[in-house]
């Protein structure tokens, strides 16, 4: 997809988002949902850069999200670091963790990368709950309960000021989306794709697999850590329960619905899945089953997701040649 088209889709998606508070106003429940949409859009997009563009089957995205959230939360609660600074530190910390996890993955092929990264995910929960976590200030099995909200020049962005908080989230999410867009369309993104398609050919043309694969890990875990930290300060409480499979699978569904490797599909996917999931709330206990069935149908009918479907329609309509 061209940069122009990508920018238009992102612009329209975030533009509609920006207008929604004017319609729904101060209804806190709806605003909360919209804010979560914006946060998941970033996580799903980062995951898409990793899997869809770089072709690295990493299952560590939720772990990086939780790491960022806990890092910033602990810094703010235990060490009284001001939230904006703690979010940045959390981003850098998560990027470092991303590189650490990425290093062994460089020598591994597809399914083994999935195992290592999912191992990190699985190991994080006992770490946070156990003695190491408690020593660091994770709050053990209670979690973090008193994370202060983001405070910029004395103005507090908490759920008490939900509309301004929404717009701040929109800005942060949009900034992340634009960073991802420019990276994908730069020669970094080309290097990611080339390494995914044929690593040997790419290396023989002068691309360092080591450098660019670590860069994918650093970049995606940095952004995921930042948005995770942001989530912590917005929500105010954190629990290791986020590492249960619910969040993991819903993020994967967002990515698949949007279209793997079809950025900015994952943003649209996040919006659609959150909206769909909320619309199905009246189904109660049958919601998860219905959602699962819908995903199966969608993946069979639109293997390249919503974005892949639209791209194909567009290219069919364009004169061939």
């Amino acid at each position, binding site marked *: 997809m061209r940069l122009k088209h990508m920018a238009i889709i992102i612009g329209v998606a975030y533009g509609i988002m920006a207008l929604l508070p004017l319609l729904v106003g101060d209804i806190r429940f709806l605003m909360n949902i919209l804010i979560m949409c914006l946060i998941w859009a970033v996580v799903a997009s980062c995951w898409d850069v990793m899997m869809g563009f770089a072709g690295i089957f990493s299952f560590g995205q939720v772990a990086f999200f939780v790491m960022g959230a806990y890092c910033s939360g602990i810094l703010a609660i235990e060490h009284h670091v001001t939230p904006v600074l703690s979010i940045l530190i959390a981003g850098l910390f998560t990027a470092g963790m991303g590189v650490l996890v990425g290093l062994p993955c460089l020598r591994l092929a597809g399914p083994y990368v999935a195992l290592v990264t999912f191992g990190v995910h699985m190991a994080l929960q006992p770490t946070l709950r156990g003695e190491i976590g408690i020593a660091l200030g994770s709050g053990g099995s209670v979690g973090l309960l008193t994370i202060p909200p983001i405070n910029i020049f004395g103005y507090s962005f908490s759920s008490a000021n939900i509309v301004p908080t929404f717009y701040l989230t929109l800005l942060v999410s949009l900034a992340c989306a634009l960073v991802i867009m420019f990276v994908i369309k730069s020669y970094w993104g080309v290097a990611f794709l080339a390494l995914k398609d044929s690593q040997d050919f790419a290396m023989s043309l*002068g*691309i360092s697999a*080591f450098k660019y694969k670590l860069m994918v890990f650093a970049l995606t875990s940095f952004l995921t850590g930042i948005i995770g930290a942001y989530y912590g300060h917005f929500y105010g409480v954190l629990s290791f329960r986020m590492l249960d499979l619910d969040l993991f699978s819903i993020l994967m569904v967002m990515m698949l619905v949007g279209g793997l*490797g079809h950025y900015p599909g994952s943003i649209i996917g996040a919006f659609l899945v959150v909206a769909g999931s909320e619309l199905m709330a009246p189904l109660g206990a049958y919601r998860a089953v219905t959602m699962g069935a819908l995903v199966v149908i969608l993946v069979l009918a639109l293997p390249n997701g919503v974005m892949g479907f639209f791209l194909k329609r567009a290219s069919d309509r364009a004169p061939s040649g």
Partner: protein
Amino acid sequence: MLRVIHVTKKFGELKAVNDLSFEVKAGQIFGIAGPNGAGKSTLYNLITGFYSFNGTIEFDGRNISGMPPFRIAKAGIARTFQIPQTFPSLTVQKAISVGSRFGAAGGLDSAHVNDVIQFVDLDNERTQNTGLLNLLGKKKLMIGAALATKPKILMLDEPMAGCNATEIRSLMDLIAKINHDLKITIIIIEHFMKVLTELTEELLIIESGAKICQGDPLEVVNDPQVIACYLGEPDAKRK
């Protein structure tokens, strides 16, 4: 220009390349042939840094042994692969510019990329995804991307495999043109003896990773040892 000095590569107990030494001079088209499994492709992987080995490889007087593939590419050695490799996610133009952006000294040179696309005759397929190219197109794409790195040596690994007579002719013309017009030294692995005798100035025959014979192609192909390694012993008794 390229000196391979006592190079040995073992995979477990198997010596894929066994104490091999030879030299390729600047401007040459240098052929390498040998039966299947002789170690030709392995030798390419050693020269271009894909495998570690014992021995020394010098390029332009500089020891390149142990350097990673991307550095060797930047140093001026480009290669193609026996099984066509492309970037299905990228268009022809983008794929060729990968070589220029990452492999050439001085980074992306759009004018050069354009020249290369014209040179390998992929102008009409410029905006096509590389996965959609036919076999000959894929081979030209690999050569084009390699040329975009502005190499001093181009190493071709069985470029004619799977091609029909017309395609072989057009690839032979292209290779001769790369050597003659662009002044790029060429090393070529090939099974078609006619291609080798027509194109190359020097021919190296290897078997089981070791040198059997090296020299003028027409003399080499008539060497009794070479004939023996391809066809078996001439005095073998028929039962």
